[in-house]
């Protein structure tokens, strides 16, 4: 009975101990090269930068890979133009609406207003007010779209991003649109 636990402990010890045993290095072709270590193993630096390393250049006879066309400049342009036009429209209708309000205020005791005139000015003013709100909100939406497009482009170092962004971007960020990462050599 006492030999069985001892056998189990021994088996466990052997199994766990064997898990930590490194396999035997393959024999070097020449004992004089033993000091060079294992040339097939990757260092930790290589492992960390494995996916960040630039791809190997394609063969010379291979067809050129089509460059990915950025959508963000188009969205940015649409956003800026839309926000400008709609914002100008909102400003104009707002000024016109305010002018009608002032006209009402000035007409009460100077010139007078008939029911029809009052209703007409009031209706036009409310329409202009509604238009101001609608155009303003639309302009805001377009401006937000332009801002988002620019932000995405800046993040990806797209065409809208400034040059210094491409220089200071993390490695691998700015190659998609033809940019380069990392410190650049100053132009000579």
């Amino acid at each position: 009975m006492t030999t069985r636990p001892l056998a189990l402990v021994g088996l466990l010890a052997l199994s766990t101990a064997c898990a930590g045993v490194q396999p035997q290095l393959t024999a070097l072709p020449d004992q004089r090269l033993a000091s060079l270590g294992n040339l097939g193993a990757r260092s930790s630096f290589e492992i960390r930068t494995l996916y960040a390393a630039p791809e190997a250049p394609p063969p010379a006879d291979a067809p050129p890979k089509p460059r990915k066309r950025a959508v963000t400049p188009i969205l940015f342009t649409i956003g800026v133009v839309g926000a400008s036009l709609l914002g100008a429209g909102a400003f104009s209708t707002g000024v016109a609406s305010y002018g009608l309000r002032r006209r009402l205020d000035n007409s009460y005791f100077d010139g007078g207003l008939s029911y029809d005139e009052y209703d007409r000015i009031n209706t036009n003013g409310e329409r202009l007010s509604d238009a101001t709100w609608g155009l303003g909100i639309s302009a805001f939406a377009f401006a937000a779209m332009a801002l988002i497009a620019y932000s995405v482009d800046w993040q990806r170092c797209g065409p809208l991003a400034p040059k210094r962004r491409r220089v200071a971007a993390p490695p691998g960020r700015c190659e998609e649109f033809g940019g380069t990462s990392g410190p650049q050599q100053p132009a000579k």
Partner: protein
Amino acid sequence: MPPRLLLALAFSVGALGGCFLSPNVPPSFRYTCETDDDCAVVTCRDDVLPIRDAEAQGLAVGCDTPEAIADPTSAYGYRQRCVSGLCQFPCALASYQNDCPTGKGYNFCFNGNCAHLCGTDDARYPDADATCPDPQKCVIFGEDIDLGALSAFLPSGGGGQSGGSSQFGGSSQALDLNELEGAGICGVRCDAEGAPACAPGEYCSGAMCLPGCDKPGATPCVDGQTCVAFGGFSACLATCSADAPCPEGLVCAPGVNVCVTTCIGADAVPCTDGFTCDPTLEICVPDDGALTTG
């Protein structure tokens, strides 16, 4: 201009212009008109409706009918008329509280039209006339309007003045003249050029029309009425005869043949100071007996 300042300016202008809320119409403002059709009525639901639309919809007059109570939009209680180029609600000095729309801030009946006070805030509005729609002016109590003459047509306790009461008026408003002194009322003076004539039975006392059909220059009574003067007052009263009896609640005063309130019976109206109930005539007669017709 800095972008932030530009942005703030854009939002400010947008907020100012975009918020075209229905402006608050000043209470003393009156819409201009050329005919009565340009004016409006106030329905029993307190909506303002153009007269053209009210007539097109066939709205009835009066808010006390069962139909109007059931459907307040089917009738109107007040109707404007075009006076001096402005839409105004007609009224009588003695009954303006019933003649003028309630809840609209009307303070007085001036020259036959419901009117608002003016000149109560000289600090903010130094030019009181500017707060009245043209051609109305701010007619000042105590300066343009003789409070002593006016108080005679107001109920006793009218505030500091020589209170009196009209035998004919039956006025029930309690107007404190002390509060009116220094303030004014928006209206067209009756002595102004082109001003409309005073109502029948009234005369122009300078700026304001006052009851008094026996005064020089008074507007004559309408057909079917007779000017009766006694006790320092005069008024147009409906004529009566054996063929034309008085309405219910009134009796035909013998001799003068006008309808007056009775002081005896279920519809009796107590006599005021200076009058005594004559049991034979069943009407209040002046103590001095001075009763004339004109």
